[in-house]
């Protein structure tokens, strides 16, 4: 495994910004470096120079998408942290519906869509699918296409099934998919009302208001400056008393606007916006 310097990373973020229009300047260094090392290894680039040259000279859309697909982390699960999903079902959503007839949800950084399908299944089992309006976004177009398709490798399902059982759903996860040619195909009707959109938390603006935002294990790839900026956008995108959920080992404590939220559930990292 080769090693690369921070100056190399800076040069890469510069060409990516110029050629692709995405800004990775304030991504967390250690994980960004690991992603670059991975790209160098997968693409068998002998050096950083070769990668930079490729980004500059390969003007095909295909390479841009390939690069974005690798630079972002797309490892996810259905019902990851089952206890979080139970709390969402038993407390968060009922609390929102006390005061509202409908519920708007944003999956910020939805990746390949496992979490979107988890939410859709949760809502269906609660019998409130028709009350929910869901928007799922990611900066990576390619991964959004995958999310829309809802096709997953069969080997991932063992873990997903286990999570679903721990979540204590009312059915069996296999009720929601069929297996076709060695692939799992999710029941499309689950996400027929979900709007999948391209949106970058770094460069994108605020586009709507929500009762519940899931942004789990997305901001861990940002440095603290960028976490602060992203949190401001998420805050602005929430109705007052709306909920924000981050990953189980993320924290808002050190963010500038942490005092605009209260902790609803520290174990599951569920926060509530209490100030504009």
């Amino acid at each position, binding site marked *: *495994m080769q*090693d690369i310097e*921070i100056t190399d990373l800076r040069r890469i973020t510069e060409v990516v910004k110029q050629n692709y229009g995405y800004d990775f300047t304030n991504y*967390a*260094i*250690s*994980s960004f470096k*690991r*992603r670059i090392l*991975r790209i160098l290894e997968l693409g068998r680039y002998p050096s950083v120079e070769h990668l930079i040259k490729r980004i500059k000279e390969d003007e095909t859309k295909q390479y841009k998408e390939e690069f974005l697909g690798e630079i972002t*982390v797309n*490892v*996810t699960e259905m019902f990851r*942290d089952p*206890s979080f999903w139970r709390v969402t079902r038993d407390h968060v959503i009922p609390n929102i519906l006390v005061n509202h007839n409908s519920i708007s949800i944003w999956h910020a950084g939805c990746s390949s869509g496992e979490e979107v399908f988890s939410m859709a299944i949760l809502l269906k089992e609660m019998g409130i699918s028709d009350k929910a309006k869901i928007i799922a976004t990611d900066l990576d177009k390619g991964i959004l296409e995958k999310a829309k398709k809802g096709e997953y490798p069969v080997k991932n399902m063992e*873990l997903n099934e*286990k*999570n679903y059982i*721990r979540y204590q759903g009312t059915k069996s996860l296999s009720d929601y998919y069929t297996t076709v040619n060695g692939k799992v195909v999710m029941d499309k009707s689950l996400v027929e009302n979900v709007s999948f959109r391209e949106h970058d938390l770094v460069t994108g603006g605020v586009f709507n208001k929500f009762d519940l935002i899931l942004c789990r*294990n997305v*901001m*861990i*790839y940002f440095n*603290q400056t960028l*976490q602060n900026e992203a949190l401001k956008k998420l805050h602005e995108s929430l109705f007052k008393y709306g909920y924000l959920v981050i*990953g*189980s*080992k*993320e*924290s808002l*404590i*050190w963010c500038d606007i942490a005092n605009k939220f209260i902790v609803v559930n520290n174990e599951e990292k569920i926060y509530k916006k209490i100030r504009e």
Partner: protein
Amino acid sequence: MRYKFDKSYKAIVIGGSAGSFQGITRILSSLPNDFDLPIIMCLHRLKHVRNGFVEALSIKSVKPVEEPCDKETIKKRKVYLAPANYHLMVELGNTFALSTDEMVNNSRPSIDVSFATAAYVYKSKLIGILLSGANRDGAMGIKKVKEWGGLTVVQDPKECMMPTMPNAALELSPVDYVLTVEGIIEFLNDLHQQINNA
């Protein structure tokens, strides 16, 4: 004192897998309670069981063991454990960073990831200790610690329940010390005394 240290260190990373639980609890229960350096542990664990492990270690440990959050500052005198299903990395600026990216050596958390990022940040001021384990995760990590000028310790394979991991490290890289758990305890105590007398 048996062990002499030629410089001041900033942190200790400890990696372990199958067969390391007893050793790690022996080490944690024998630490001086004012042991100065942060100890960062990456131990293979059940990926989908979030609770229980840190508590089990804390019961045996002189100091409480904590699972850090992303971007948490690394503090002296603390003992940290990589949380379930995340890679634990050391970030420039003396904070932790977490990641959920692909498993490394079939592991998340991966010892190689924790060790390599810590080595990059602490350079020669890092001590890496690798314990018993049944796969090769950690071997590359020890190599990185060594390459950046840090001090490396591997548990004596003869004593290990699962010697694959320490053996892999010894094959891949020169290592400063091969010690039993009792030897590691003495090593840490000598280090502690030297820090206190400095």
